[in-house]
C-alpha cells in the first residue's frame, strides 16, 4: 500500500538542527575548536545540502513511523520511500510504499470438529516397555545346546549368489542376536538348530524391495560357521530390578510409571494430530491475502534450509518451495490473528519458563541464554504465542476421539 506523508517545515528545521549538532562535532576548521563552528560558518563552508541530506535521513523515517502509528498499520517489511515534492532541497511530501499485514476476516476457529486417533495404553504396552528395559540389563550366558532364535551367536559367514561372492556378504566373528527380522528372510531360521562348531549352507532370499538393487529378489547361499551360542538372560522382574533401573521402589510402581509415561506420549501425539488437523481446517476455511515479501522471505528461508547454506537457491528451487512457503505464511498470519483476537500473549512467566527449559537443554544458566538471544527474544516470544495459540485451538476443538490399541512406536 502507498502512503503519502507530509513533512512540516518545523519538523524539518528541528531535524536540521539535530543534524548540524551531530555533524559539527566532526568538522575541523582553522580558528575553531572542534564542535565550536557556528552554523552560519559551517553552511558557508560546506553548503546547506550537507545538513539537509543528513536531516532527511532523520526526518523521513520518523515521519514514516509516526504515520504508521497514526494509521495503525503493521508493516511487514522496510518501506520503499520516495520523495514526491521538495522545496529548496527540502522534502515536503514523501511517498512510502509498503506491504502491510493483511486484515484477516476470521471465521469460526473455536469448536472445529476433527476426528483424531488416540492410543489407549494397554497392559501389553506396559509389558513390552518393561521387556525392553529388562533387555538393557540382560546378561549373556553361554549355553551348550544348539542355537535357537533369540540367542546371541558368534558366526562367520560367506555369502554367494550363483557361486559368486557379493559385497557385504561376508563376515568373520560377528556377534549378533539371532532374530528373524534382523536379517533377510531365511537366514536366522536357517542358523537355528546349529550346534557350536557346525558348518552349514543357509539359503536366504533377498526381498524384492531390498535397497541394493543388484541383490533384490536374488537367492543367496551362505556358508555359515557357528562359534558360540549365548542365551540372553533377562533379569528377574521384581522390585529390586525396578529400583535398579528407575527411581521407583517397586515393580508395581515402575509399571504405573511406565503406563503414565506411555499415556503422556500417546496424549501428546493425540494433541499434535488434533493441532495439525485443526490448522488444516482453518487453512482451508480462510482466504488470506499473502504479502509477497513475507512469502518471498519464507521461500528464501526454506531454500536456504534445504541447501544447508551450500549456495544461493536458484529460481526453480524457489518455485518448488512456493506452496509450502505460502502455507506457512498463511498459517502464521492466521495464528497471529487468532492470538490477537483471543489476547494470547507471552507473559513474563512464559518467557522465564521457556528460558529455563532452554537453559536445561543447553546446560547453561538462563541469564546466559537470555544474553545470547538478545534481540531474538522477540522471536522466542512469537514462538511462545504460537504454541499457546495452537494449544488454545486444541482445547477449543470439538474432537471426536477414536481409540486405538497398539502403542505408538517409541
Amino acid at each position: 500500500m502507498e502512503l503519502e506523508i507530509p513533512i512540516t517545515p518545523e519538523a524539518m528545521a528541528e531535524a536540521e538542527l539535530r543534524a548540524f549538532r551531530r555533524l559539527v562535532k566532526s568538522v575541523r576548521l582553522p580558528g575553531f575548536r572542534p564542535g565550536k563552528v557556528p552554523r552560519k560558518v559551517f553552511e558557508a563552508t560546506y553548503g546547506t545540502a550537507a545538513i539537509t541530506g543528513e536531516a532527511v535521513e532523520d526526518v523521513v523515517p520518523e515521519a514514516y513511523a509516526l504515520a504508521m502509528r497514526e494509521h495503525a498499520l503493521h508493516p511487514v517489511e522496510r518501506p520503499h520511500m520516495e520523495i514526491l515534492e521538495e522545496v529548496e532541497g527540502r522534502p515536503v511530501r514523501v511517498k512510502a510504499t509498503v506491504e502491510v499485514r493483511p486484515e484477516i476476516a476470521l471465521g469460526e476457529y473455536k469448536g472445529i470438529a476433527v476426528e483424531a486417533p488416540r492410543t489407549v495404553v494397554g497392559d501389553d504396552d506396559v509389558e513390552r516397555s518393561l521387556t525392553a528395559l529388562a533387555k538393557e540389563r540382560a546378561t549373556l550366558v553361554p549355553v551348550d545346546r544348539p542355537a535357537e532364535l533369540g540367542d546371541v551367536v558368534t558366526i562367520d559367514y560367506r555369502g554367494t549368489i550363483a557361486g559368486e561372492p557379493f559385497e557385504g556378504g561376508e563376515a568373520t566373528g560377528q556377534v549378533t542376536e539371532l532374530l528373524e527380522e534382523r536379517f533377510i528372510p531365511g537366514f536366522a531360521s536357517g542358523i537355528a538348530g546349529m550346534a557350536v562348531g557346525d558348518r552349514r549352507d543357509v539359503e536366504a532370499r533377498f526381498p524384492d524391495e531390498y535397497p541394493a538393487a543388484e541383490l533384490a529378489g536374488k537367492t543367496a547361499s551362505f556358508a555359515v560357521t557357528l562359534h558360540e551360542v549365548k542365551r540372553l538372560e533377562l533379569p528377574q522382574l521384581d522390585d529390586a530390578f525396578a529400583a535398579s533401573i528407575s527411581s521407583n521402589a517397586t515393580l508395581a510402581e515402575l509399571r504405573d510409571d511406565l503406563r503414565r509415561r506411555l499415556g503422556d506420549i500417546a496424549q501428546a501425539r493425540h494433541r499434535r494430530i488434533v493441532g495439525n488437523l485443526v490448522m488444516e481446517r482453518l487453512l482451508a476455511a480462510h482466504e488470506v491475502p499473502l504479502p509477497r515479501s513475507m512469502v518471498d522471505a519464507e521461500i528464501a528461508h526454506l531454500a536456504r534450509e534445504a541447501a544447508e547454506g551450500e549456495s544461493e537457491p536458484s529460481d526453480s528451487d524457489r518455485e518448488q518451495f512456493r506452496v509450502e512457503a505460502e502455507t506457512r505464511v498463511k498459517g502464521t498470519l492466521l495464528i497471529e490473528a487468532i492470538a490477537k483476537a483471543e489476547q494470547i500473549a507471552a507473559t513474563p512467566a512464559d518467557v522465564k519458563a521457556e528460558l529455563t527449559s532452554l537453559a536445561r537443554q543447553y546446560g547453561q544458566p538462563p541469564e546466559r541464554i537470555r544474553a545470547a538471544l538478545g534481540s531474538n527474544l522477540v522471536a522466542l516470544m512469537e514462538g511462545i504465542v504460537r504454541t499457546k495459540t495452537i494449544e488454545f485451538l486444541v482445547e477449543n476443538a470439538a474432537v471426536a476421539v477414536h481409540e486405538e490399541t497398539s502403542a505408538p512406536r517409541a
Partner: protein
Amino acid sequence: MDARDVIVAPRITEKSMAEALHQQYTFTVHPHATKTQIRHAVEEIFKVDVVKVNTVNVRGKARSAARRGVRTSGKQSDFKKAVVTIKVGQKIELGGVNYFEQ
C-alpha cells in the same frame, strides 16, 4: 592606498565570532595601514559608522620541521589585525552571508 588593499580579509575565528556580538569586527589588514585608513576603508566598503579601531601586529609563529634528517626552521607570516567597533544597530555582512552572526 585603496580601501580594498587596506582590508585584506575578515578573520573568522571563535573569538572574532564572539566579539561580533558586541559590534566588534576583526579583519586582517595591510601591515602598514593606519587606524585612520582602516576606519575609512571599513566605512567605505561596509557602509557603516566606525566608532573605534584597535590594531595589533601579530607575529607569525615559529615553525620547524625535520626533512631528510635535517632540521629546517621557519615562521608563519606576520600580519596586522584590526578590531573595528561599529555603531550600535549596524552590522557587517560578507558576500551576502552574515558571517558575524550566530
